[in-house]
């Protein structure tokens, strides 16, 4: 190990426990909770294997009154949950890591869609996060009762084998709702002065400490600044004062900033936040606490980690996303393999799955995240190849480069071919958009790994800047298997999800209409007045609007879908909207285009036809005609309408399937955007998946994965049965 990183590997005591190093996976959701114990145990223990000294659950509900359905939390409501979570603590302990549980009561932020219970809070209000969900104002009995929920949950947590027990008060969950005047309007002993507002939290800590403090370290997660000025908590005021009050009751502080309604200021997307972006607030805590302080900030660079600890800003490096993108980050630092780190790109696609509510977490960089248990994928270890087949991968974008990388890891002879001079494909364009430079780490990781791997096999080759392969070239290439990863392109004729047909007059060959690719290539001049026609729900239109407005164009976005809808899920939405305001970008919502000409486009309100449906016979619309059409002027029209796969090569080979055998070709497969346009995360997954399953009878189609479902006939609640029984 490089001695300059030694600081990061120094053990540190937290209460009755010792953390073996300074790498600490803070609580983060994965979609496992307590109901998918295999997923939970495998995902967390993978990080323990990769060297993280501390590992946590996601937020863990202490009672059915805190039910976040459809978002997936862990739960520690009963013995069944204890049993399931114990699978995780046992696995993590095998690697000598400490394991923590983040005891959570949400108040009205948890809408209780499954449990149908009513959340309680310090006062009555509607959640600023789940705006349809209200809480009941607690009376003194309620306070005692809810505090007892924490204690009971802490006891169950101890039994489940947890070393660290949290009272979770970040992201404006219950303890912080008491502390913050934004929520707490009480006039009794639990409201008003800081001491009163802190009382609920302090008492809860005291009770939990009394119950399990000799066996477990007591942690609290505290958002030390709500980033809303006087309305909430400000670090130099209530923030530091609360830390002083609670310091004797906690063994370790886990500090961050922000509230759940805008938690993108905590889990900062790289579009807006650099590494260590919370330090300006976090650094105050060590000034008043005698206890170890840990904090997050997308810490991926060991130099920065050392600097932060040396400067006395934090004692322990907390990480969610860096640990998802690279579960082996600590070991790679320890082994001097810093260039092998799969650096988190800060896209927040991991978070999007939690925000959507339900689906398991995925990661753009690490295709194995979430697949540890169900597909048996280890991020650093690979099944050796099962044949001597040679494989040609056409296209070195996210999907093709990942496929080639994994095939090479498995020992296959691989040729990766691309016309471009650089690995990365579409990512090279995307990373040139404003604020998305760090997305280039996706390419960099694969580039570094491929360049290392190709040296291990004399017959493997990375052919960049290569002559485009045609069908004959592929048939005669001499590969046993061919993987086509030729990507996708933006539609040039206005075709979109909204009409599934070209728009009359739209044609990207015209000098005043451009696709995103043409903007990237800089192949056409862009006029002063830009109109972006958008039917894409993610970042392309907002990013191009940002880019062009910054370059001095007057930008309007006419959109037929919710502009940047997916950016709500990646937590980029609030700040991109603020940026739009700053740049005077105008949004024309709920419109689509009927036709376009040089200099103008005709838009109509998508809800402009009649609201009543009526059967009017064949050839007649069931609604009255839409008469909302209006012309809008532009100098350049930008077409972000939809995407289509680049499939001509695949189709050409498929047409000549009869010649495959005589050319010794066993199969030709399609992955990534070439199969269907998709997120970079999913394209990467495609490439990874087919590389892991290349020797299956037809690797085009995935093998079934192991599912974790509640199985009929097995019950875990005391006295429960699997028989159907009615209360009559």
């Amino acid at each position: 190990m490089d001695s300059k990183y030694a600081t990061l590997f120094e053990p540190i005591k937290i209460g009755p426990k010792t953390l073996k190093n300074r790498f600490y996976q803070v609580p983060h959701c994965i979609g496992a909770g307590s109901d998918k114990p295999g997923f939970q145990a495998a995902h967390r223990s993978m990080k323990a294997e990769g060297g993280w000294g501390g590992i946590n659950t996601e937020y863990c509900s202490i009672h059915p009154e805190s039910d976040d359905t459809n978002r997936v939390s862990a739960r520690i409501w009963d013995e069944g949950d204890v049993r399931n979570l114990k699978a995780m603590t046992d696995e993590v302990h095998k690697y000598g890591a400490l394991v923590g549980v983040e005891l959570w009561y949400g108040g009205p932020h948890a809408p209780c869609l499954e449990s149908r219970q009513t959340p309680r809070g310090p006062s009555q209000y509607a959640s600023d996060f789940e705006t349809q969900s209200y809480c009941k104002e607690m009376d003194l009995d309620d306070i005692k009762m809810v505090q007892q929920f924490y204690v009971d949950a802490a006891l169950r947590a101890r039994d489940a084998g947890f070393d660290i027990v949290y009272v979770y008060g970040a992201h404006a969950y219950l303890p912080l709702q008491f502390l913050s005047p934004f929520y707490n309007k009480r006039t009794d002993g639990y409201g008003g002065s800081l001491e009163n507002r802190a009382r609920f939290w302090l008492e809860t800590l005291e009770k939990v400490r009394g119950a399990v403090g000799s066996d477990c370290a007591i942690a609290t997660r505290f958002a030390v600044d709500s980033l809303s000025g006087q309305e909430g908590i400000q670090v130099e005021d209530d923030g530091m004062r609360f830390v002083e009050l609670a310091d004797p009751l906690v063994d370790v502080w886990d500090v961050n900033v922000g509230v759940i309604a805008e938690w993108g200021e905590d889990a900062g997307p790289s579009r807006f936040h650099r590494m260590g972006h919370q330090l300006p607030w976090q650094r105050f805590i060590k000034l008043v606490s005698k206890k170890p302080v840990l904090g997050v900030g997308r810490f991926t660079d060991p130099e920065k980690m050392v600097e932060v600890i040396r400067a006395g800003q934090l004692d322990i490096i907390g990480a969610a996303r860096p640990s998802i993108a690279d579960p082996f980050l600590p070991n790679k630092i320890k082994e001097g393999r810093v260039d092998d780190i799969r650096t988190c790109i800060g896209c927040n696609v991991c978070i999007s799955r939690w925000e959507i509510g339900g689906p398991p977490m995925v990661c753009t960089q690490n295709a194995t995240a979430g697949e540890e248990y169900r597909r048996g994928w280890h991020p650093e270890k690979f099944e050796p190849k099962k044949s001597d087949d040679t494989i040609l991968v056409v296209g070195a974008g996210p999907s093709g480069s990942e496929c080639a990388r994994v095939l090479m890891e498995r020992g296959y002879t691989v040729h990766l071919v691309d016309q471009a001079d650089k690995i990365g494909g579409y990512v090279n364009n995307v990373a040139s958009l404003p604020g998305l430079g760090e997305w280039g780490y996706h390419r960099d990781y694969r580039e570094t790994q491929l360049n290392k791997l190709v040296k291990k096999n004399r017959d493997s080759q990375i052919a960049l800047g290569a002559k485009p392969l045609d069908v004959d070239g592929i048939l005669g290439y001499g590969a046993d298997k061919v993987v086509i990863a030729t990507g996708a392109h933006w539609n040039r004729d206005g075709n979109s999800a909204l009409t599934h047909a070209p728009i009359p007059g739209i044609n990207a060959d015209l000098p005043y209409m451009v696709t995103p690719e043409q903007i990237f290539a800089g192949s056409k001049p862009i006029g002063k007045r830009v109109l972006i026609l958008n039917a894409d729900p993610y970042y392309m239109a907002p990013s191009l609007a940002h880019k062009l407005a910054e370059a001095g164009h007057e930008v309007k976005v006419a959109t037929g879908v919710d502009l940047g809808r997916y950016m709500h899920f990646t937590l980029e939405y609030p700040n991109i909207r603020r940026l739009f305001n700053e740049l005077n970008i105008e949004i024309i919502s709920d419109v689509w285009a009927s036709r376009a000409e040089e200099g103008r486009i005709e838009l109509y309100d998508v809800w402009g036809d009649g609201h009543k449906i009526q059967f009017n016979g064949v050839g007649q619309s069931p609604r009255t005609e839409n008469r909302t059409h209006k012309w809008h002027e532009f100098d350049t029209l930008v077409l972000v309408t939809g995407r289509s796969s680049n499939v001509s090569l695949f189709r050409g080979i498929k047409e000549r399937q009869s010649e495959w055998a005589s050319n010794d070709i066993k199969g030709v497969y399609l992955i990534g955007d070439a199969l269907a346009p998709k997120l970079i995360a999913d394209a990467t997954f495609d490439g990874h998946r087919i590389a892991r399953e290349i020797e299956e009878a037809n690797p085009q189609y995935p093998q079934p994965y192991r599912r974790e479902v509640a199985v009929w006939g097995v019950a875990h609640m005391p006295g429960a049965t699997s028989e159907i029984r009615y209360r009559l």
Partner: protein
Amino acid sequence: MKILVPVKQVEILDEDFDVQDDGRSIDPDCIEFELNEWDDYSWETALQLMEKHEGTVEAVPMTVGDESADDGLRKCLAKGGERAIRVWDDSVAGSDPIAIARLIAAAAKKEDAQLVLAGTQSTDQAHGQTGIAVAALLGWPHVAVVSALDYSAADGKLTVRRELEGGVEEEIEVALPAVLTIQLGINEPRYASLRGIKQAKTKTVDLLSPADLGVSTDQLGETGSAARVRRMYIPERSKAELITGTPPEQVKRLIEIVNELKGA
């Protein structure tokens, strides 16, 4: 017409490497071998001539080296050509570029080649001598650092271009037999296909000894070489400094350094 293309496996050093105890070479554990970059271009030149004059031009890659050098020859054969030549026995070890050129010149004669296309230089040693020495030994005309080339089968002449300083180009006509050294960028070397790589494994590499070529051992190795490596070492590096502190502190330090360098 037969073209002989001498190629070389060059040493690629690991990021961290050590000089051997003898102080004259690099620890072989820190070295990987790769085909010299220039040779990709000379071999591509030969392949293009062979394709353009199908049936009348034959190209043969050759190398002077031990068994491990076969890799480089097979890399060439994966792109085209039918056979290759490797020259070696223990007496060759320690040869300087001139001694190596003796073997190449002898091979050119034995093969009855009319054209030798060498790389301008090798990435590891960068002598830039071998090709020119071959021409001198054969008594053939030579043109160095060739950036374009045209061959007319009818009159057996080559028209070649060289880039000179300041954007000036020189065009030269040479009669065969001749030796050219080829510059990077003369063409876009092709990539081998998997089929080519598989086929290359079954193509012949003729192993010849210096005796087979009529070169006596006193013309080779350290005894046959005029140049000898006396010392290999890593020059002292000027030191780098990480400037830390607040921006004003950093600026202060920066100004100090600039002044130090200016001698102020």
